[in-house]
């Protein structure tokens, strides 16, 4: 269950940040503190919605399984392999975010150029790698669940971008 809790926390964090990314570059005011807080919250809400969808999928799969205990163990093992991919990515991201809020131009520039910019581009690949890692050696139902989970997180970001686009009249 610890693995599930960590994955849930990372998913909500990821989609919360997607909320900020979805509105960034669409509003040209200078003081965007309140705007970014609002879209972080919206991202978190969408992230929780995504988790509910994922949980519903997994509960359904467990309910229909012939050997529920075995499927549960397979899901935990898949989640652990997913964590092996996502935890390093998240830690690097968090360290860069800390560096970015340091009031020093050089530190901020390095955090942005070396980590935050490239990681935005790498995110889709990391999600896919996480799905492959989870699916590795797993039974078909877990493989489907792994890719469906990542697809739901990707869809959550797409939903936020559409929402932000509509909200800004684009």
């Amino acid at each position, binding site marked *: 269950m610890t693995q599930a809790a960590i994955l849930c926390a990372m998913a909500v964090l990821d989609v919360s940040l997607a909320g900020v990314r979805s509105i960034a570059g669409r509003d040209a005011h*200078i003081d965007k503190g309140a705007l970014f807080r609002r879209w972080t919250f919206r991202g978190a809400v969408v992230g929780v919605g995504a988790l509910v969808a994922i949980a519903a999928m997994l509960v359904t799969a467990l309910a229909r399984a012939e050997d529920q205990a075995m499927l549960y163990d397979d899901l935990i093992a898949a989640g652990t392999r997913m964590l092996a991919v996502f935890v390093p990515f998240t830690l690097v991201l968090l360290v860069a975010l800390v560096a970015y809020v340091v009031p020093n131009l050089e530190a901020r520039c390095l955090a942005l150029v070396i980590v935050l910019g490239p990681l935005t581009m790498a995110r889709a690949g990391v999600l896919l790698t996480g799905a492959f890692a989870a699916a590795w050696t797993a039974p078909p139902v877990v493989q489907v669940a792994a890719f469906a989970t990542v697809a739901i997180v990707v869809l959550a970001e797409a939903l936020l971008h559409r929402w932000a686009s509509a909200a800004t009249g684009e």
Partner: protein
Amino acid sequence: MERLEISDLVVAFDGATSARLPVRRDDVVRELANAGDRRGAAIARRLPTRPGGFLDEAQIDRLLVRVHTELQRLSEEFQQGRRVEQLLGPLVRSLPPGPGGRRAIVDVGCGLGYLVRWLALRSSLGPSVDLVGCDYNHALIAAARRLAADESLACTFVAANAFSLDRPSAVFVSTGVVHHFRGSDLDAFFAAQDAAGAAAFVHYDTAPTSLAPLGAWLFHWARMREPLSRHDGMQSVRRAHTDDELVDAVRRGAPGMVPVLLDGVRARHPLLNVLRPVIGIRPEHLDGFLRALGPLAPRAEVRR
């Protein structure tokens, strides 16, 4: 081969009256195609037109506001306001009082006026400084005024030639503008500031380092949505002037001012040297400015 930015081609203004001139989409497509820019031509081919094959000005303006809003995101992430402020602060403090005790800081080609509005929000340059943004594009200026009014910022925006404002001893600034001036136009750009009686100028643009093309590709794809933004962002980095090109243009165009580089292309690691300014200053103000720079002074290179 000449590198072109689509945003330079889709709007045209009468040099004398600054009135908007109609632009044919086919002409834009042809110009890009002739420059060997197939991707740019493909983007231009999808631009909206009105009867007669002319670009639809209202839709083009809305597109440019979106593009500049995306561009502002990069300025925010790269702390462009702070970069300029750390230079303008010492510069303004070191200059003698302007006429009537006031000094204008004029942002040339200000777009949505991000820099001017950021400085206005900070109020760090003091109450005797007038912050003015200039751009030929009325739609961008209207948007800048609306944004400034929304946040009650003390700054003004004018759709006019920045060098005809009659603000003697002004300090002209810009970000990401100088690469738009090529050849003798770059000399003329600096000459206009000398002739306008500027006390100094500070023009930031992309540093053409070895990592700049990769960085530009990465950030314009990661942060921008409009194909035009991505195209022009890449082109602007490829068009960035070298240190020597900028310094030589200042020497030729503005002989009454001393060129100074801060963080020249070879002076800093490419990872840290994303944007760097070329500075021009009247000789009588140079020593005071260098003293006022404080910890930044060792990074300044006077190129008489």
